[in-house]
């Protein structure tokens, strides 16, 4: 049942052939069977079963919401009342939030059942989920490989068939990249669509929540649940249309799809290039028109992002000082050493590295050369997209330059890890919506994702094209062997 689509599970809950309590039990058992994948930081069995009972009562009362009683899992970056919210860090390994994030409250209000909190790179800083204080998450397609990151646990929870949909966050690609590497559909909406309230801050002008699912349709249903204006987030968009399903079946005839020439150069694995071109041709067969477009500054997205995001992070993470919450160092002599020892012991290497880079970029004498220069470049990158959207309705390209790397292959070389974000970070710089959907399988047996980029607030169009592609192809239906194997044996 857990490998069915959200709509199918929902139908079973409604026709009485399945209860939410049974579904929740199955998900918890499947999570236990797949414990070796380390997708979860914590499981909330007691609360999940209580919530499932409530959902069953609501269904018995005639609740027709397709999400009522559906199991899900939240990334451990979202604050959950009375449940650990560690953000993958030692410094928050004792943090029990006194409130729910808006995203968590919104899914709970829809009677969804959260079975646990998923593993992630510490403070969402990473592309492999190896920097978690709780150890790495493994890719169910091949457990010698990483699932991508930073929302690696959220992706694996869906890819391994534990839950049909999950939440993640995407600051530089952290939903789209693990979706690509785990063979899933994953969408990051327009910046400001989802409230950031209760989501631990990494880089505030980039951070945006998103969702994982096994199809465009499932992600559309889940995305509707978490979007919406929230007065508690000053950057929340007030006036938004949150209907992502009514256009799913629209014909894509005549739609102009732009292929940026910079996305298909020597940085891209040639096998991935072929797969993504094939997918573009499939869309052409459905009536779309393919046009080559130019995003001249896209190569500079990485240096621009790796100044601005660490700069914002160095400021945001200054709150972790051991005084009001979080783990405090045991040994200190004065206030200064309380701060320094707490932070030095509490943060992992990658987080410290980014705080150092951000602090340097913001420091006196370097601010103009790095921070201001990057902000100017950010505008040029945004302008590139404005120009491109005059020539096309949607942009298509690869999500990642390579398939999932092996464990330990890139995390010791920060620069090579950062370069893997080449196709994803520019969207965050611009605040645009983007989605990764499965486009094929590489020669090494690992999934390949293609990215669909829309103009602001054009999630419906992205989901429409993704859904039409998935009606014509079956890449999204492929599952890792662990999806069905009792003990999650990898291929």
């Amino acid at each position, binding site marked *: 049942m857990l490998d069915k689509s959200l709509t199918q599970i929902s139908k079973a809950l409604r026709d009485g052939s399945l209860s939410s309590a049974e579904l929740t039990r199955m998900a918890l058992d499947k999570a236990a069977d797949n414990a070796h994948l380390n997708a979860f930081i914590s499981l909330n069995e007691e609360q999940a079963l209580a919530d499932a009972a409530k959902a069953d009562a609501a269904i018995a009362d005639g609740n027709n919401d397709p999400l009522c009683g559906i199991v899900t899992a939240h990334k451990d970056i979202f604050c959950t009342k009375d449940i650990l919210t560690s953000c993958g860090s030692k410094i928050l390994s004792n943090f029990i939030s006194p409130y729910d994030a808006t995203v968590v409250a919104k899914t709970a209000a829809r009677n969804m059942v959260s079975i646990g909190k998923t593993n992630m790179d510490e403070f969402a800083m990473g592309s492999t989920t190896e920097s978690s204080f709780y150890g790495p998450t493994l890719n169910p397609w091949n457990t010698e490989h990483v699932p991508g990151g930073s929302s690696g646990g959220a992706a694996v929870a869906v890819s391994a068939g534990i839950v049909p949909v999950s939440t993640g966050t995407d600051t530089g690609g952290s939903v789209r990249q693990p979706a690509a590497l785990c063979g899933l559909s994953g969408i990051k909406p327009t910046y400001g669509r989802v409230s950031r309230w209760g989501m631990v801050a990494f880089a505030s002008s980039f951070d945006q929540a998103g969702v994982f699912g096994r199809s465009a349709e499932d992600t559309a249903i889940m995305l509707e649940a978490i979007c919406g204006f929230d007065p508690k987030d000053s950057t929340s968009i007030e006036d938004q249309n949150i209907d992502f399903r009514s256009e799913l079946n629209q014909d894509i005839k005549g739609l102009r799809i732009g292929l940026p020439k910079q996305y298909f150069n020597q940085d891209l694995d040639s096998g991935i290039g072929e797969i993504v071109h094939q997918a573009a041709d499939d869309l052409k067969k459905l009536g779309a028109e393919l046009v080559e477009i130019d995003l001249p500054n896209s190569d500079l997205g990485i240096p621009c992002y*790796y100044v601005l995001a660490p700069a914002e992070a160095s400021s945001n993470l200054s709150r972790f000082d051991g005084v009001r919450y979080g783990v405090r160092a045991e040994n200190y002599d004065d*206030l200064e050493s309380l701060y*320094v020892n707490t932070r030095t012991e509490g943060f992992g290497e990658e987080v410290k590295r980014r705080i150092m880079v951000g602090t340097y970029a913001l420091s006196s004498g370097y601010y103009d050369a790095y921070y201001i220069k990057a*902000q*100017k470049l950010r*505008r040029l990158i945004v302008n590139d997209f404005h120009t491109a959207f005059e020539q096309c309705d949607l942009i298509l390209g690869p999500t990642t330059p390579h398939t999932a790397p092996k464990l330990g292959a890139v995390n010791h070389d*920060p620069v090579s890890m950062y370069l893997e974000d080449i196709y994803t970070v520019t969207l965050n710089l611009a605040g645009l919506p983007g989605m990764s959907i499965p486009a094929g399988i590489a020669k090494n047996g690992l999934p390949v994702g293609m990215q669909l980029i829309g103009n602001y607030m054009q999630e419906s169009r992205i989901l429409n094209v993704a859904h039409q592609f998935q009606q014509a192809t079956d890449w999204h239906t492929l599952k890792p062997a662990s999806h069905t194997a009792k003990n999650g044996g990898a291929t």
Partner: protein
Amino acid sequence: MALSPEQIHKIAHLAKLSIDEGSIAEISSQLDNIMTLIDHMEQADTEGVEPLSHPQDPVLRLREDKVTDTDRRDDFMRLTSHSEDGLYLVPRVIE
């Protein structure tokens, strides 16, 4: 431009982190690699371009001036074991 050990210590001081002398060479080489990547920004001609700090170029929203939050002081104080009489405890700052 390579960062000197003094510069690294200065950045660490600003960031309230301490750097172990034994690992300074490795940290220095990693930061140098990152800064070399970042220096590619110089390729872009940004003369006359207005800096962009936020994708929305947002205007801060105003709301009616009334209290909407409830008093949850005790809930928040419970997050640390270092408090007394509703105050956070830190080492003595003023003698």
